[in-house]
C-alpha cells in the first residue's frame, strides 16, 4: 500500500532532456499564476489598458511623452553609435568618450526645466568634463575596457 503511494511521486529525468525539466515546471507555474491574476482582476484590466494607452498617445495623467520617449530614443542612439564609433578606434575607449559627450548634453537639455543661458552653459561644461574624467580615470588609469 505504502509502496504504491510512494510510486505515485516517482520521477525519472532523462539526461538529454534534463535541461527542460525545471524550466517546464516554472513555465507552467508562471502561466497558472498569470491566469489566476488575470481572472481575479479581469474587470480592472481593460480600463487600465485604456488609461495607459491614453497616457502614451495623448500625454494624459501628467505623462511627459517628450521626455520619456526622448530618453529611450537617445539611449538607443547612444548605445548604437558607441559600438559604431568604438569599432573605428578599437581598444581606445574613444567610442565611449566621443559619443558620451553629445549624449549627456542632449539628455540634460531634454531634462532641464528652463533653458537659460546659464543652465545651458553648465550643461555644456558638464557634458564635456564628466565623460572626459570618467574616460581618463577608468580607461587610462584603471585600464578598464570601454567601447
Amino acid at each position: 500500500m505504502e509502496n504504491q503511494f510512494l510510486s505515485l511521486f516517482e520521477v525519472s529525468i532523462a539526461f538529454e532532456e534534463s535541461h527542460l525539466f525545471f524550466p517546464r515546471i516554472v513555465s507552467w507555474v508562471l502561466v497558472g499564476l498569470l491566469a489566476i491574476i488575470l481572472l481575479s482582476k479581469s474587470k480592472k484590466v481593460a480600463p487600465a489598458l485604456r488609461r495607459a494607452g491614453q497616457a502614451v498617445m495623448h500625454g494624459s495623467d501628467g505623462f511627459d511623452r517628450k521626455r520619456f520617449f526622448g530618453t529611450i530614443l537617445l539611449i538607443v542612439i547612444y548605445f548604437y553609435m558607441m559600438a559604431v564609433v568604438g569599432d573605428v578606434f578599437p581598444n581606445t575607449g574613444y567610442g565611449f568618450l566621443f559619443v558620451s559627450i553629445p549624449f549627456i548634453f542632449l539628455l540634460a537639455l531634454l531634462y532641464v526645466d528652463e533653458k537659460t543661458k546659464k543652465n545651458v552653459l553648465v550643461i555644456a561644461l558638464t557634458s564635456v568634463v564628466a565623460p572626459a574624467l570618467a574616460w581618463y580615470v577608468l580607461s587610462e588609469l584603471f585600464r578598464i575596457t570601454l567601447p
Partner: protein
Amino acid sequence: MEFLSYLSPMFFTLIAAGALIGVIFGAIPGMTATMAVAVCLPLTYALDLTNGLALLLGLYVGGISGGMVPAVLLNIPGTPSSITTTFDGYPMAKKGEGERALKISIVASLFGGLFSAGVLFYFAPVLADFAIKFSYVEKFLIIFLALTVIASLTKNMLMGIFSGVLGVWLSLIGTYEITDGGNGETRLMFDFMEYYLVAGFSLLPVLIGIFGITTILQDAEKGFKGDAASPTIKLTKGSRFSFSVFKGQLVNLVRSSSIGTFVGMLPGVGGSAASVLAYTQEKNFSRDSSQMGNGAPQGLVASESSNNALTGGALVPLLSLGIPGDSTTAILIGAFTLQGIQVGPLFIGDNLDTWYIMIAALVIANFLMFGIMFFAIKYIAKVIEVPKHLLYPIIVMMCVVGAYAINYGIMFDVWTLLIFGVFGYIATKVGLELVPLIIGFILGSSAEVYFVKSLESYGNLTIFFTKSPIAVFLWCLIVLSLAFSIFLKVRARKKESFASYS
C-alpha cells in the same frame, strides 16, 4: 590577526570615499544605496579584493545613512528606509533644529550599524556551520523558503509570488551549464537569440538596468517638474545638539537596532518595513510617546538606528547562505563574484582573512560615515540642491561602463541595460514587485541545479519532505510564513471594513 596587514591607507581612503559617495547618493531623493553601488561598480574592477570590499561596503553604509538628509530637511525620504525619519525630523527642522535632528540621526545610525555588524560577526558563522550540512534537498528548500518569505511580505501576495517565479524563469534562459552537472543545451529562447544568450542574461547588467535605468525612466515620465528642491529652513536656530539627548534611549536604541538587524536578515523585506516597525514599537512601548510625530528625538533614534542596522542584517544570509537580503546586497553578490568570492556556507571557513576584512571594513565604514556626516553635515545638506538634469545623464553613462566592462567588453550587456530598464518600468506599472523578481533571478539557476540533482539521485518527489528533520523544519517555516501573511491580510481587511462602518 594576519588580516591587519591588509589594512593600508588606501583601504581607509576607499572606505571614506565610498561612504562619502554613498551619503551623497542617499541624500538625493530617488537615488539609493543600490544605485550608488551600481554606478561605482566599474571602479572596483580595477581594485583587488581587499580594496574592492572597502569601497563597496563604504558605499553600502553611506548610501543607507544618506537618506536622513532630505528626510529631515525636505520631508522627502532620500531612501525608502528613512520614511519614518520624516515624522519627527521635519517638524524639528521647521523649528530651526535641523542640524540637531541630523546629528541625533547620525549618532543613532552609528549605533545601529555597529550593533548589526556585531550580530553579523557572531551569527553568520553559526548559521554557515549549520548550513554546511545541507544537501541539495535542503539547499533547494532554503531558496524556496527565501522566495516564499519575500513574496508573502509584499503588498499583494499573488503579484509577489508571480514576480519571484518570473525572476526564476528569466534566470533559466541560456545554457544548462555542464559545470553544474547539466547537459549544455540551451532553452527558453528562439534559435536566432542563441548567439547573444548562450550564457543567459548577465546578473549585473540586469540589476543595473532595473535599478538605474528604470528609476530614470520613471522620473522622465513625470517630467522633472520642480527639479532640485531647495530647503527653505535654517539648519541652526533652535536648541543645539548634545549627547544628553540619548539619556534613557538605550532601550530604544537596542530594540530598534535588533528589529533592523532581524528584518535585514529576512530576504527582500526592505528597509521601510524595518523603520516603520521600530517606530511603531517605540510608540507603543515608550513611557512618553506623546511628542512623537511633532519632533521627538526618540522617533529619530528609532528610525535611524533600525535602518542602519539593516546593513549587517542583510549581510548575514548573503555571507552564510548565499541569499541576498535586499536589492543592494543583490548587487554586492555580483560584485563579490567578480572579485572571485563565492558566497555561501563555505565562504567564511575557507576565507577567514576576507571575512575579517569585511567585518573590519563594515565597522570602519560606520565610523567614517559618522565622522564625515557629523562634521560635514552642513555641506552635505547642500547636495540635495544639485539638479537631476545634470546627474541623470551621468548616471546613464556610468551604468554603461559598469555593464560593458563586466565581461570585458560585450555590447549585448549594454543592451541588456535598456531591455531590463524598460522591462522594470513596465513591471512596476503593472504592479509587479521588483525585489522578489531580482532575488528570484539571482537564485533561480541554483534552485534548478538543487532541484534536478535531488530528483536525479533520489527519483522521488517525497524526498523533499522526508530527507531530514531540517527539511521538515524548513517546510514548517514555509507554511508559517504563508499563514502569517494571510493572517496579516485578513486582519487588515477587517480593520478596513470596521473603518468603513463607523
